[in-house]
């Protein structure tokens, strides 16, 4: 049974930033911080997560050892049989580094790792806009594309932990070759694809999608056209998901997915693509969905021992 003094440590590791929090076992955040992800790769990133826990526990006045349950979201697929992490293009070396064992050694407690988009799905299910849903998806669009799936009220991870790794959905142009690290849907709607599309169409100086959204606000036609194209491809993915899984709600998240400018355009495209209504919404928890989901899931570890993939 839980005692009141129990706390959880939750982290959401992304390619560019690391968010971490100490929360109570109900998933309520006590202290929270965000820092840029150490670019030097796996070992440094793992160390950075541990250091984050130290800083947070100092700030909150809670000893790290009291953080009994640790949940770390990572941007990759975790094989439920082997615990092996794969499909992480953004953090060098993480596929061959046992981040879970490292953190268990540091914290002296059990550590669960989970796909970051799955945690965002859990966050929206527990606290956000998918609260009453049994069948929903969290569609994350940012540097890359990912999907968290809730089927019959439970997280669905797939036979090898890579359900929802929709980067390689064959949507858009012909699929990439087998040896290419990035794949099709992501090649069409990932942030670098959007920037490239903008530059190819003769847009002004823009090196990030953020720039493009700013230009859009200033009435830039190319920015508007580029987002229209992107939204149409996203809409194709949404129709695809809906015909496969018949979902109640598809939540848009990730740095690009949360932008209403994109979501509105996708809605517009959907009206022409699909004769059946499809429910979509912008993430209510925004860029904290993954972290809040991790904190909530960490609180469930003592109640549901098998929270780690499987």
């Amino acid at each position, binding site marked *: 049974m839980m005692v009141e003094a129990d706390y959880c440590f939750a982290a959401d590791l992304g390619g560019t930033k690391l968010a971490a929090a100490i929360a109570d076992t109900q998933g309520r955040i006590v202290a929270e911080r965000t820092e840029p992800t150490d670019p030097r790769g796996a070992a440094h990133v793992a160390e950075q997560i541990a250091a984050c826990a130290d800083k947070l526990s100092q700030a909150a006045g809670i000893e790290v050892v009291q953080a009994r349950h640790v949940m770390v979201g990572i941007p990759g697929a975790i094989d439920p049989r082997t615990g092996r992490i794969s499909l992480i293009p953004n953090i060098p070396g993480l596929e061959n580094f046992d981040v879970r064992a490292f953190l268990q050694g540091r914290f002296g407690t059990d550590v669960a790792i989970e796909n970051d988009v799955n945690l965002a799905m859990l966050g929206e299910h527990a606290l956000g806009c998918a609260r009453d849903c049994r*069948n929903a998806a969290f569609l994350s669009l940012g540097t890359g594309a990912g999907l968290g799936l809730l089927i019959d009220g439970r997280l669905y991870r797939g*036979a*090898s932990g890579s*359900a929802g790794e929709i980067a390689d959905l*064959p949507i858009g142009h012909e699929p990439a070759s087998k040896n290419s690290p990035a794949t099709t849907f992501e090649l069409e709607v990932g942030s670098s694809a959007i920037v490239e599309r903008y530059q190819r169409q003769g847009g002004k100086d823009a090196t990030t999608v953020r720039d493009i959204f700013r230009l859009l606000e200033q009435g830039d036609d190319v920015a508007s056209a580029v987002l229209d194209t992107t939204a149409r491809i996203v809409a194709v993915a949404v129709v695809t998901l809906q015909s*496969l899984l*018949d979902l109640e709600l598809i939540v848009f998240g990730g740095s690009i997915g949360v932008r209403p400018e994109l979501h509105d355009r996708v809605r517009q495209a959907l009206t022409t693509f699909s004769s059946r209504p499809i429910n979509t919404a912008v993430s209510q928890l925004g860029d904290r969905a993954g972290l809040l989901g991790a904190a909530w899931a960490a609180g469930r570890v003592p109640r549901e021992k098998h929270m780690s993939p499987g």
Partner: protein
Amino acid sequence: MIVRIGDESNNMRALPSLPIAGVSRQLSRRSAFEALLHHSPISRAHLAKVTGLSKQTMSEVIDDFERQGLVRRVGRTRGNVGRTAVLYELSPAGGHVLGIDLGAQQLTVALADIAGRVLAEVHEPTDSRGGTQVIEQIARLADHLAREHHTHLGVIRSIVLATPGVVNPRTGAIEMAPNITGLAHINVVGLLTEKLGSPVVCENDINLALLGEIWHGCAQNVGNVAFLALGTGIGLGLYINDRLVRGENGAAGEIGYLPIGGDPMQAEARAQGCLEYQVGASGVVRRHREAGGSGVESAREVFERAQAGDPLAASVVDETARLTALAAATVIATADPKLLVLGGSVGARPDFADKVARMLVQLSPRPVEIRTSTLGRRAGVVGALSVALRRLHDEFFGVAELTAPLPLPQAAARDTARQ
């Protein structure tokens, strides 16, 4: 002899309010039945050992079962020393189930007993007039099967109907099934229940074909399976975390509507589903004609010509395989199944399945095991029987929400059941 145990089953339904002795008795009956299901023929002593129940309890339960006609004696053990024991097995008279697979081309009806033994099966072309004519046809075949077994429809206690499309739970009509006419505006479930005399449960035909493959076909003991069926139309069944995925409105797996292979905004594509408009049987014939082919009436002929070396037909088949592989790639990326089963009259063709598998390697970076359906056109009716059996078992031996459904006997398990 047919023994009706209707009164018994009415008691079962009232179980939650029974005193604990009733629940405990029901659990004993359930355990005994499960052991009989998986280990027949079997003696009382062996049953007691398998279930962990006392010999006394087991004797009472078996006496009960004998009186109700649930079990019958099939001989005696040939012991080395000491007395021999009577061997029991589930009696075919214990209860019957009916499975119906209503396809656009073919209608199959099968009768099985409570132990899952298929007693008779019949199929004929689906009445092309559709609607109530099809209802009449099903009733006629069911009656024929029962008579063939010197019995009547009254012995059938559980009926499951496999249909394309989605059953509207409010009206009992079958929607989104464009290949059979006249089912969208009649109460299919209600009419069939009335004709056959027992409640009919409908389930999507692809889902049932998938359950058929899981019970007796190529997907036994696999927890995550995708079943992709291509024939008159295209559909997907998903079985993940050991459960069917039905979706919010029962429309999961309606992949005919995938935006693959054409412009999803075009009128015909919108109505029939973008992917199905291309790869469904009529799409194959249409694309063959559009490519300059002639003299072809059915998709089957296109496939036969392709196999005989006709380059034009081959190109149509190749494109069909490519689009099917694209659909499979979206399934793999999204649902990450352990096994992909290709079924349906086109999908299960070995030459076609090979093409799909080869193209899938180009399209999907993740390897997945692919098998072709081993039950073929029987998959749907076998799946319907499996669900009908589960429902019958649950009616007789369900204990509120206390226990999971009884596992059905495996096809291969019969030889190895006796330890």
